[in-house]
């Protein structure tokens, strides 16, 4: 089975600033890849290069077996791209929006398809309502329906669930998985950890560079992080104060509060243990080593990079 996305050394610069830096990525058909990374790390730019909206400065690759440089027109016929912003027409009704998408793709049996899509959405009664009047969750559902009308083989979703309530998010993911089971390939960007864990595989990008790829477990294991959960031993102990003391100590790379608990960790196990030694002798806190979460891994990666600056 061929890969739906296969790109090597993809690079894009804007005014001398490298936004995507030699990115290579392979996504097998029928898989859901979670594309993660801080804001401004180059996720959207990568997606735009994949669907032919941007021409890469360097690198090459194929999308659905088609060359992203020379065959973008053919790629566009077979992909569905849901942009970050709601990008249907707010001054068109639900039906009119879907009808426009169907016409643009020259779909046969247009009316029937549009009606079926509206029914699937459960919006039959509201089909003449303007898209601009819909709530965030419904807009997202409508946008997804619009980019699925022409039955794409690859779905590119740029933060599809931003500002959507948990119930709608859950339904969204159920739908995505059902479609992936039928062979649709999905590349989805998100900032939600629970969503990342729903993907078959994840790719983490920072400063335009791909830092890690693989399943969630592989990425966590690959980060080689040692973490401790710290709980207050008595009512007078403040994890907040402890966190302030721990920050900046060499060897400690992760200090993150989780409710009353504190997650502390580092990439170098020996250095971390040595650094924590004096703190663990204090009787105010209970220390327990636990498995790092995906979020621990990401937080440990993040502080080293602030947007617009390159990593030292």
């Amino acid at each position, binding site marked *: 089975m061929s890969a739906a996305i296969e790109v090597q050394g993809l690079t894009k610069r804007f005014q001398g600033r490298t936004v995507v830096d030699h990115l290579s990525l392979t996504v097998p058909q029928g898989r859901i890849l979670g594309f993660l990374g801080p804001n401004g790390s180059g996720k959207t730019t990568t997606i735009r290069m994949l669907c032919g909206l941007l021409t890469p400065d360097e690198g090459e690759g194929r999308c659905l077996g088609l060359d992203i440089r020379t065959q973008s*027109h053919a790629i566009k016929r077979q992909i569905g791209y849901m942009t970050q912003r709601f990008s249907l027409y*707010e001054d068109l009704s639900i039906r009119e929006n879907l009808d426009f998408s169907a016409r643009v793709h020259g779909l046969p049996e247009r009316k029937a398809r549009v009606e079926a899509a509206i029914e699937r959405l459960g919006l039959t009664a509201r089909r003449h309502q303007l898209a601009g009047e819909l709530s965030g969750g419904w807009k997202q559902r409508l946008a997804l329906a619009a980019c699925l009308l022409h039955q794409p083989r690859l779905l590119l979703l740029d933060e599809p669930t931003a500002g959507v309530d948990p119930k709608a998010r859950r339904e969204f993911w159920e739908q995505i998985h059902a479609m992936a089971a039928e062979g649709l390939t999905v590349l989805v960007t998100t900032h939600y950890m629970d969503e990342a864990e729903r993907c078959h595989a994840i790719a983490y990008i920072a400063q335009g560079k791909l830092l890690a790829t693989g399943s969630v477990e592989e990425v966590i294991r690959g980060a080689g992080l040692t973490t401790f959960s710290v709980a207050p031993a008595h009512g007078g102990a403040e994890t907040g104060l402890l966190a302030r003391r721990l920050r900046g100590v060499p060897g400690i790379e992760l200090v993150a509060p989780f409710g009353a608990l504190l997650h502390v960790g580092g990439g170098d196990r020996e250095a971390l243990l040595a650094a924590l030694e004096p703190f663990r002798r204090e009787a105010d806190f209970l220390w327990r080593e636990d498995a790092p979460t995906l979020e621990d891994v990401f937080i440990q990666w993040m502080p080293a990079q602030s947007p617009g600056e390159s990593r030292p």
Partner: protein
Amino acid sequence: MNRALNGQRFSWQRLRAMMFKEFIQMRRDRLTFAMMVGIPMMQLILFGFAINSDPRNLPTAVFDRDHGPFGRALVAHMVASGYFRVVEEIQEDAQIEAGLALGRVQFVVSIPEGFSREVARGRRPELLIEADATDPAATSNALGTVSVLAWHALDRELRGPLAGLRSGPPPFELKMHRRYNQEGITQYNVVPGLMGVVLTMTMVIMTALAVTRERERGTMESLLVTPLRPIEVMLGKIFPYVVVGYIQMTLILVAARVIFGVPVVGNIGVLMVASVVFIMANLAVGFTFSTLARNQLQAMQMGFFYFLPNILLSGFMFPFRGMPEWAQRVGELLPLTHFLRIVRGVMLKGNGPEEILGEVGALGVFMLVVSVVALKRYRQTLD
């Protein structure tokens, strides 16, 4: 409760914060800033240098069937007045019509056969000046000058026994024929012209906004990722406004006829067909602006920046021939200039397809050039 504590009193500090923010935003939007400087500069140059409501050096054709001294002397005096410039010597009647209909000349002076002889005999022969009076403003001063000049133009030539003719009425009878607009009614000129102005304004701004709106609302990206090709987007955006343009034209035509009583001498069908080129040219301009503007405000400003020379240099507001050479050259580049000649030609002069072909051609060239620019600018990719 104390108003000061409540923060309800006018605060200079808050006012300054607000003003400071406005200045930063003003400076950030380079185009708006450039327009704020550019538009007054353009107005200054156009109003200050280009516009002249007393046009001189108007192109004149002379049909001299007499070849006598008095006729020649008279023409020389007319030229000396500064209002007339002889550009053509014509030989037959048909050329009179052609020169005026095509707008090649503003006046035709016809000196009848035996003019000098008749003058010498004191028989006061007729001298005919025909003027293209579609724009009364362009001809009234010149014609006024001739009627004054006629009284003494031949004084020097009337010597010896003829000296007696010097006093009294002019030694010939001056007949002035204001063609196309006999009563010199300004509306006859302005109302057809308005059709061009309205079309320019709506077509350019509407298209510019329509495309910029897609970009501003973020729908452009989705559009770009569909199989739609640039030419399809462009034509699809433009065509609905062609229909709007025709509705506007019809409205103005009906109003011209019913409310202003403007005569429609020519064939409306010819005008409608020729207009499509003009409408398309303007839409292509609007589309080009939309590819340059980052937001709807900028698109509006560009539209205005384009509109200004069109209205001032095309001959709509001020006689085209009154402008200096350079301004006329600029005017020739603007589609409205050519459209005004078409619409006035068809409605007032009764011009047919052959007479307007040159102007339609000029519009066609303009439309093609701008369309190519528009298509090149409209990028299928975002980079």
